[in-house]
Each structure stands twice: as structure tokens, then as C-alpha cells.
């Protein structure tokens, strides 16, 4: 810490406001928030289908080679989609999206391109969207573990 540092304890109104009379119990608040998220499920699935269509178009544009513009657009698309499946309580799709973002982040910084690694993620994306609500949890977990291995292996070169 340099000598010009100033350390102080600022007033934080949040601490007082949150204690005001009224409000909700934490349990009720979480239940109400989950109910609100459930109302977004249909919108979330529609958006994920749009993301998949755009991702497939970008994959086709890459045409098996590294293309900085395509990879950056692809990464931005997938990065923006992480968290959207939460509205549909679909953590499997989120796990797949994180794995794909890891992979694309590696490619955009290294200049490499692994066509099959990207393809397997997109195939899984399709599968997870088609089987939403009727999936076997154990089988899904095995598929996701496989994807994580693919992105880790790619990052290690």
C-alpha cells in the first residue's frame, strides 16, 4: 500500500434500508424470484434456439479455418447466452455454453481452430434443446463431462 492511500469506512445506506420494517423472509423472497424466473422459460427457450441458429451460421462461415472476426463474434454470442437457460432451470445447457466459451476464448487468443471440438459442442447444444425436460440426468452428465474434456484438451494444445 503506497503512502498516498486513504482507507476509511464509508456510510453504506443499504445496510440500514435492508433492515427496515416490512419486507419478506428470505425463503419467501427466493420462492417469489424462482416463480418470476419460471415465467421466462418460454422466452428463454426461444432465445436459445435463436442463439443455436446464429452459432451454426458462424460455424459454417468459419469453414474449418481460424477467422478472427468469426471467432470473436462466435465468442460474444455464446458469452451473451450464458445464464439465459437459468430462466428455464436448464443448467445442462449453461454448462455446455461455458465449455464452448472456454474453447472459443482459447481459439481467439491462440489463433487455432478445432473444427471437430466446436462441432461436438453444437451437436450437444441441439440435442439438449430437443430433449429439454425429458433428459436422462446421468446420460446428460456424461455428455457434459465429455465436453469439458474436449475444451480442456484443446486449451492444453
Amino acid at each position, binding site marked *: 500500500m503506497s503512502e498516498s492511500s*486513504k482507507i476509511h469506512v464509508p456510510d453504506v445506506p443499504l445496510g440500514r434500508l435492508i433492515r427496515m420494517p416490512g419486507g419478506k423472509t*428470505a425463503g419467501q423472497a427466493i420462492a417469489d424470484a424462482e416463480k418470476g424466473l419460471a415465467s421466462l422459460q418460454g422466452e428463454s427457450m426461444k432465445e436459445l434456439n435463436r442463439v443455436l441458429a446464429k452459432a451454426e451460421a458462424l460455424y459454417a462461415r468459419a469453414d474449418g479455418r481460424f477467422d478472427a472476426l468469426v471467432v470473436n463474434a462466435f465468442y460474444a454470442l455464446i458469452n451473451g447466452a450464458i445464464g439465459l437457460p437459468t430462466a428455464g432451470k436448464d443448467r445442462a445447457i449453461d454448462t455446455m455454453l461455458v465449455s464452448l466459451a472456454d474453447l472459443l476464448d482459447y481459439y481467439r487468443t491462440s489463433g487455432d481452430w478445432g473444427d471437430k471440438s466446436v462441432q461436438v459442442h453444437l451437436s450437444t447444444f441441439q440435442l439438449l434443446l430437443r430433449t429439454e425436460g425429458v433428459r436422462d440426468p446421468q446420460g446428460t452428465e456424461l455428455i457434459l463431462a465429455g465436453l469439458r474434456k474436449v475444451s480442456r484438451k484443446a486449451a492444453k494444445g
Partner: protein
Amino acid sequence: MGFSSDPRARFNLEQVSILLLEETPLGMSILVQILNGFGGRKLHRCDSVAKAESIARETELDLLIVDAMASGGGYDFVHWLRNSGIRPNCYAPVLLTAAHTPAAAVTNARDCGAHIVMAKPLTPKAMLDRIIWVARTGRRFVESDKFVGPDRRFKEGGVPEKVGAGRRREDAVQGKG
């Protein structure tokens, strides 16, 4: 500390002025549903850094929930806020959400001055734990040439241990580094 996210504990967000910065419409809807569920009513929705800066200049804020955004604009906004001198907003608690933290942005995420970085996907339980954690009073603040933000050297327990599986484990508390 007097209150917690124990299911029976009460808290009140009705009078809390909250800025939300999230560029995707559905991402914003997710945040709004979570905060409305918590009883939050004073939500300032911003889909760009420019709008967030404008709100921060004009409105007194008690809490900010800022997405890092693919461009890294969220980090820049928090850094701007901390160095803006706009009181009391420059000291307000900031929860930074991040979908994916690219290798190139790890330093920004650590040093921008947020209280907590939360990895997406967001869950109501994880969000509430963190709001309650940042609402605790007595948090030290550092202002130096190189860093403006909550003191990262404090030794305080709390969030975010055992708050769920998966990416929640990657959530970083500014202050343990």
C-alpha cells in the same frame, strides 16, 4: 450482523435504489424477476454503460448489479464509478456478474473495484446471499493511485462458501486475494 439469508430471516429491499446494467434484454429480465421477487421496487434498468453513467450522475444509488459484458464495458463502468468522486454512489456496493471471464480480463475483474464477482448463471439464492453480504456495514474502502474500491485485505467470513454447485465455486469475493 443481525440478518442473514436464513429462510426465516426478514429483509426489505423496497426502499433500496438499485442500478442494473445488463445489455441483453433476456438477461435484464432475469435480473428484474429475481429482484422483484426479493421485493425490490426502485430498479434503474440500463442497457449500456452510457446510460448507467447518466443514472449514476443523477440518482442516489444504494446497490449496483453490473454485468461485465462481452466488451468488458462493465469493468470499465465500475472503475469509472469508483474514480468518479460522485458521492455516495462511488462507495456503493457493486455486484459484478460475468458470463465468462476471458483470460485477458481476469485482472480487470479483480481490480475494477467491485465488492463481489458472480459467475453466471445467477440463482436467486446466490444473489440474495451476496446482497446480504455486501449490505453488512463497516466495510473498509481504499482510495489510492492504483486502486479505488473495497479493501481486498479484510479477513471476514461469509459468502460465498457452500452456496451451490458448479460455477458458483468460481465466484470471487473481492477481499480474499
